[in-house]
């Protein structure tokens, strides 16, 4: 087995990196692949709470790197998905506790045992980001349809290209179809035109993302959630399946159709 390293990054904070890492990881594990998620956000760890594994942490990434435990001891096994593991970040240290070459060495050790090594990158373009992309085979850039997130995504894509870790693949998160239809939110096509990279996922804004993170159960495991389905589709695309993109448009009823017809005729 030669596992692939997938790094999830964004530049801007709060766009959904951790949610994407947890859910794509969980979906891959649900499909039967062996997955380990690494939280590279040292000092601000969160992948543990989103996955609901926070009470089981004994050792962390920095303990492994500094030789205080064996790699296996720092891996927490998810009880719901036996093929899913987490290596948590240290909470009381900072990004300089780990180097890019430490991350490469760690991933090389994990590759023979796993199908996927998912790395949750911290926000920013400094050391933590460089640690996270150093071992990457695939880079997922998460953005939201808003000016600040798109701008930061562009910056990150440039850095990924200059580190020769590309081509980066884009995940547009938190899309509000109603706002897009009204012309008050950038459409995925607009974001794609601006950033000019390949799309790998579009996730609708979905309250179930919050309720499932409240519970510590990835939304990708919920068959009813639209966002969950979108995350599962990203996982399938990573596995090489050709999956059509979900329609973001849920028609908007009679009035919505009428207004769009008038607009189409009025331009």
């Amino acid at each position: 087995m030669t596992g692939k390293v997938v790094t999830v990054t964004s530049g801007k904070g709060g766009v959904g990196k951790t949610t994407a890492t947890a859910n794509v990881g969980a979906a891959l594990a649900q499909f039967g692949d062996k997955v380990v998620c690494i939280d590279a956000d040292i000092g601000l760890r969160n992948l543990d709470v989103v996955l609901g594994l926070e009470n089981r942490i004994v050792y962390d990434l920095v303990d492994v790197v500094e030789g205080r435990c064996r790699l296996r001891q720092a891996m927490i096994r998810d009880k719901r998905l036996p093929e899913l593991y987490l290596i948590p970040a240290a909470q009381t240290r900072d990004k300089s506790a780990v180097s890019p070459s430490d991350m490469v060495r760690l991933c090389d050790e994990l590759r023979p045992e796993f199908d996927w090594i998912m790395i949750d990158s911290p926000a920013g373009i400094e050391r933590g980001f460089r640690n996270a992309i150093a071992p990457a085979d695939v880079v997922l850039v998460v953005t939201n349809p808003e000016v600040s997130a798109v701008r930061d995504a562009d910056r990150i894509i440039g850095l990924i290209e200059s580190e020769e870790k590309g081509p980066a693949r884009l995940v547009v998160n938190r899309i509000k179809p109603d706002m897009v239809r009204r012309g008050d939110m950038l459409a995925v096509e607009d974001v794609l035109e601006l950033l000019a990279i390949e799309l790998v996922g579009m996730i609708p804004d979905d309250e179930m993302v919050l309720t499932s993170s409240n519970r510590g159960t990835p939304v990708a495991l919920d068959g009813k959630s639209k966002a969950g389905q979108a995350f599962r589709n990203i996982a399938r695309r990573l596995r090489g399946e050709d999956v059509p993109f979900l329609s973001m448009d849920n028609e908007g009823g009679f009035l919505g159709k009428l207004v769009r017809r008038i607009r189409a005729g009025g331009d």
Partner: protein
Amino acid sequence: MAGFLDRLLGRETKSAQQAKERLKLVLVHDRTDIAPGVLEVLKDDLIAAISRHIEIDPSAVRIEMTQEGREQRLIADIPLRPVRRRRVT
């Protein structure tokens, strides 16, 4: 009422459209590390240099950055002045 009608019929510039236009410019400058003011200075220098050799209309000169995929291009559009022919009598 007029504002409402405009919005209903989509005549008003949509905020998403504004976001896209603004981002286009911002990204060009971010990617090339060229501040917006630098282009103006460059334009003046270009006009001066070209004017030494050929006659141009300085007010019609356009210097723009364009995007093709993830590549940036500097486009200079410099209309030439037609030569005024003297009438041969």
